[in-house]
């Protein structure tokens, strides 16, 4: 009962926090993305990554949505839905109060504002929805039914946005860190790993074709060397992590290009050290490891496939779900450490052995 009330209070608080979008107009490139609402979709529109996002706009258009308000409302609803699915996953990993902490961070953190208040940010919300549902589907017993649901959720994630493909990587992370499946030591484990890898390749090929090899704009606009790109991206991640901790520098367009190579290397080193530390504590704090690993895996494509832009706020919603999980788990360990009864030295009373009554 208390859990339900807390969840309802969090939902109400989220609605209040996003109340200003009721009066928001179309901003930046909203109009471009919403053009799908005005015209019938082709098979090509639907079959490529973000097809589901386009379909959601079209459905609203057909249902007679006029003006930006209905589109904003659906974005807020998507945000709430992601949070509720995330709660379902979090409570399989953490005690309920800490699962609520994780969901509260997701619902209320201003770093998610761009994805929610920007109509075009719906792509990231749908990707987050599919990704969390995919991992949650396999958090229970690993049956064919669960595998099918996870596959369907992954397709939904990709339908939201191409980075939804990383749901498969997160399922693998869950298997290794939380379930401790001996992936390379048993035939069954190896079979699941191979199946996952094959699914990843099959789903990745069309994305590679539509978004990179077949997209002339991509080739024209991306000209940084992979190393320089990855270094700047590391700095971007550090900046966004800083904003997650203290959200005072949130903006639609972060300026990352002012950094020196030395500072970028420091950032990359910090991230690498964080990952090593997370792996090191995987036995004692598996959910912290899982959360940090989630961030790393979800952001991996952003490091290896150069884009014309570096990371910005709407692109980290799915990745930072791992951060909220790790934060809640970290708080749980901290609380346990602080509230543990102090171990005092006690006298050892030596009692004599019982006197045998036998003759």
């Amino acid at each position, binding site marked *: 009962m208390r859990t339900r009330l807390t969840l309802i209070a969090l939902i109400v608080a989220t609605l209040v926090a996003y109340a200003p979008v009721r009066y928001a107009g179309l901003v930046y490139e909203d109009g471009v993305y919403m053009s799908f609402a005005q015209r019938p979709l082709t098979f090509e529109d639907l079959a490529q990554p973000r097809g589901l996002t386009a379909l959601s706009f079209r459905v609203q258009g057909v249902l007679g949505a006029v003006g930006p308000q209905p589109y904003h409302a659906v974005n807020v609803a998507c945000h709430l839905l992601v949070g509720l699915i995330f709660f379902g996953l979090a409570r399989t990993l953490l005690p309920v109060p800490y699962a609520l902490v994780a969901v509260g961070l997701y619902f209320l953190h201003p770093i998610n504002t761009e994805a929610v208040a920007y109509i075009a940010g719906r792509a990231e919300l749908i990707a987050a929805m599919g990704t969390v549902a995919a991992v949650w589907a396999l958090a229970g017993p690993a049956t064919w039914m669960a595998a099918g649901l996870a596959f369907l959720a992954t397709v939904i994630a990709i339908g939201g946005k191409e980075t939804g493909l990383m749901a498969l990587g997160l399922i693998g992370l869950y298997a290794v860190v939380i379930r401790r499946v001996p992936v390379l030591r048993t035939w069954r484990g190896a079979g699941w790993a191979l199946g996952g890898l094959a699914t990843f390749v099959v789903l990745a090929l069309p994305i590679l074709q539509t978004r990179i090899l077949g997209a002339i704009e991509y080739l024209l606009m991306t000209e940084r060397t992979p190393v320089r790109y990855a270094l700047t991206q590391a700095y971007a991640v550090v900046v966004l992590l800083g904003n997650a901790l203290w959200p005072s*520098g949130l903006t639609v367009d972060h300026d990352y290009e002012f950094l020196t190579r030395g500072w970028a290397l420091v950032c990359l080193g910090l991230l690498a050290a964080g990952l090593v530390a997370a792996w090191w504590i995987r036995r004692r704090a598996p959910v912290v490891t899982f959360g940090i690993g989630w961030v790393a895996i979800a952001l991996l494509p952003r490091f290896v496939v150069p884009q014309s832009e570096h990371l910005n706020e709407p692109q980290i919603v799915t990745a930072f779900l791992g951060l909220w999980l790790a934060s809640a788990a970290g708080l749980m360990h901290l609380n346990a450490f602080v509230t543990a009864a102090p171990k005092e030295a006690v006298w050892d009373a030596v009692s004599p052995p019982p006197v045998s009554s036998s003759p």
Partner: protein
Amino acid sequence: MSRPVIAVVLCAWCALGTTTYMRSRVWQSDFALWRDAADKAPQKPRPWINLALALEQAGDLDQAMRAHQTALALSFQPRLTEYQQRFSALASETNIARVLAITGQETAAKRMLDDVITKAPLFAHARWNRAVLLARLGRCEDGLPDAQLAKQLDASFQEFACAPGSR
């Protein structure tokens, strides 16, 4: 969960919710969004380009011109990629030409647009603006090829037609 931890979590939720409320207000309009972005990333051309467009929409052409000029000045920083430098400069020059045309300085606007098109013949926005400018100057037929090419390059431009009797 101990009481102090619950108190800390509640305080954090309140603070985060309040900040989200304030960020949501920034996302209410283009002007608020890009004013905030230009304040936080003043060395980046894109916020200035978009702020200038928002100011133009609001009818504040003086401030819009200043913001376009700032964007143009920032476009030549070597830290930007070649694509970013080129796009920012072309976009800013095209926008400045448009504001010049709106404020009655058609000759200067035409010269600027000619210059942009010489540098980047396939920059659709410059082609489109030159077509509109020529139509305003009563030379609509001269602008037709520009408008057709712009539409070919970017389907989002609307249909361009000359009124009967116009040259």
